């Protein structure tokens, strides 16, 4: 982590309420936090503690019911009101790279085509070189002409990570990236993320149940019932 890095993400009093009939459930309950550039943050906590909801709000995939969210100093959500969908699309494209538990690779596209997929929808100079470089960094360049069905689960997740990296995002959001992998492959993916954080300076925000993966982070934030849990306060 860069010492005294700038804040790339700031969340103030974020709340997300779901309604089930007359019942209101606060999936995220008054969460405030900030993440510095180059930081590796892991969210942990039991199932239903609001980790995924929070990371989706931080990644502009979901709107909070109230609160404020700023990215690199720019307010994107204020009092629960988000910017237009078009602006949010641009922000997702330019700032974030998303990694999910499921890989969501297109089975009829080869590894390299899957990684190139974001550039189908927008052009970026030097994109092809970047794809080749990232495939090498991910250690899957020798598999680039294979279809997803022809590679292992660990390799598939590497492809998904490569796809999240090609647009050179400043923040990687990873929701249970090792949830579908065995211990050895989970360790490999963890090492890879740590390497990207340390060597490429990427900010990584991670949700995981995997304690070994969480330990790799610079900071671990535990959530309970939608709130940040401070062991000191209980």
């Amino acid at each position, binding site marked *: 982590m860069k010492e005294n890095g700038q804040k790339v993400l700031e969340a103030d009093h974020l709340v997300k309420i779901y309604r089930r009939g007359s019942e209101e459930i606060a999936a995220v309950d008054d969460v405030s936090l900030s993440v510095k550039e180059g930081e590796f943050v892991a969210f942990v906590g039991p199932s239903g503690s609001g980790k995924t909801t929070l990371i*989706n709000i931080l*990644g502009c*995939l*979901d709107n909070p019911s109230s609160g404020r969210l700023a990215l690199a100093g720019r307010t994107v959500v204020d009092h629960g009101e988000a910017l237009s*969908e*078009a602006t949010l*699309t*641009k922000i*997702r*494209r*330019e700032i*974030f790279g*998303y990694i*999910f538990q*499921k890989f*969501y690779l*297109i*089975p*009829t*596209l080869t590894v390299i*085509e899957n990684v*190139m*997929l*974001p*550039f*189908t*929808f*927008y*052009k970026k100079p030097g*994109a*092809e070189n970047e794809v080749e470089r990232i495939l090498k960094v991910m250690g899957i360049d020798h598999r680039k002409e294979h279809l997803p069905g022809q590679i292992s689960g660990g390799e598939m997740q590497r492809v998904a990570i490569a*796809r999240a990296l090609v*647009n050179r995002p400043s923040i990687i959001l990873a929701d249970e990236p090792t949830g579908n992998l065995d211990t050895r492959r989970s360790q490999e993916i963890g090492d890879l993320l740590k390497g990207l954080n340390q060597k490429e300076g990427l900010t990584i925000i991670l949700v995981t149940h995997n304690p070994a993966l969480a330990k790799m982070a610079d900071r671990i934030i535990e959530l309970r019932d939608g709130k940040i849990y401070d062991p000191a306060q209980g």
Partner: protein
Amino acid sequence: MIKIFNVAYKNLLRKKARSGLTIIGIALAAWVLVSLLGFNKGYESSLNRDIDNLGFQMIVTAKGCPYEAATLMLKGGTGLRYMPQSITEQISKEPEVEGVTAMLMQAVFDPNKGESGGYSAYLGVDPATFPQMKSFLEFKQGSWFTNSEAMEAVLGYEAAELEQREVGDLLLITEKNVEVKVVGILKRTGTQDDGTIFLPLKAVQKIFGIKDELTGIGIKVKKDANIAQFEEKMYKLPDVQVVSLAQVKQTIMTLVSTAKVMVFSIALIAILISVVGVINTILMSVMERLQEIGILKAMGATAWDIFKLIWIETLILCISGGIIGAALAMATAKLTEVLIRQLLPYAPSGGLVQINLPLVILTFGVVILIGLLSGVYPSWKAGRVRPLEAIRSQVE
């Protein structure tokens, strides 16, 4: 970089059977459409050509059913009615008339023809007037008769092939046990003349024992004549009826229109089925890939990008179906013609189904329109999906 078209194309490869069946559905609709439009065009032009090649604009026959008369005039046949030959002279005196030609049609059953026998049509024509009226007829071999009473025959192209006769050969008229000499064989005309055996009028009258009687008189009207007025005059003649070729055309087109409406309805139903099929296929495909669509949106794809992707998939299905359908229509034009001939009360000779480039382009236009319209709803539905809802759609 991977193009949006490649992504769309490869998406369709995921469910090959489903995509294939949808393409077949569209191909069938396109096939029906091309064949139908081809028939619409081909039938009318063949009918016009048949009528033009008669060489006269009006025909006078003995009184009877006008539909029968129309059919006999174009197709030949049995069950003929006769009228006195003297009418010929009477008609030729009319000022509107440029020329008349007397005809006597006879049909003889030949048990040796084909597998189970068939009719041979003998048309007695006046050697002095008929060749003039049909000046466009060309000879493959020989020429017209040597005199007006000669026991000679001129064979249409197909009649010569069927009878396996050449100029100089003898031809037996089976029922009458009379032999005539073949003096000429016509080139192919694409009309009923191809299957006709022409003899001098007097020879036919002699062979069949018909004295001073005719089955028809062809009338060529002067260019500046008032045809309607002349028709009225002809109606006044006793025991004959006048059929103008405009009437014949109208009659036939009326008879055919019922069949056309039926076929048009079938085409419309086929198109509707294919539209529903396309919408169903694409919608299912969108629903199955909702999570992927969510990921694409999370990667920065806009609603319009997703709309385009799904729309291109629809267009690929429709264009593929259109190509296959058009090719199928061209390949099976002959078969379609055979089927249509069985459906219609009268079918002119020559190509009934004419498929050409403008028609194929028109069909493509219709198919693409089907694609564009069918794709709108699934594409719009996919485009407006919110990324998180889509990603969650099957996870939870």
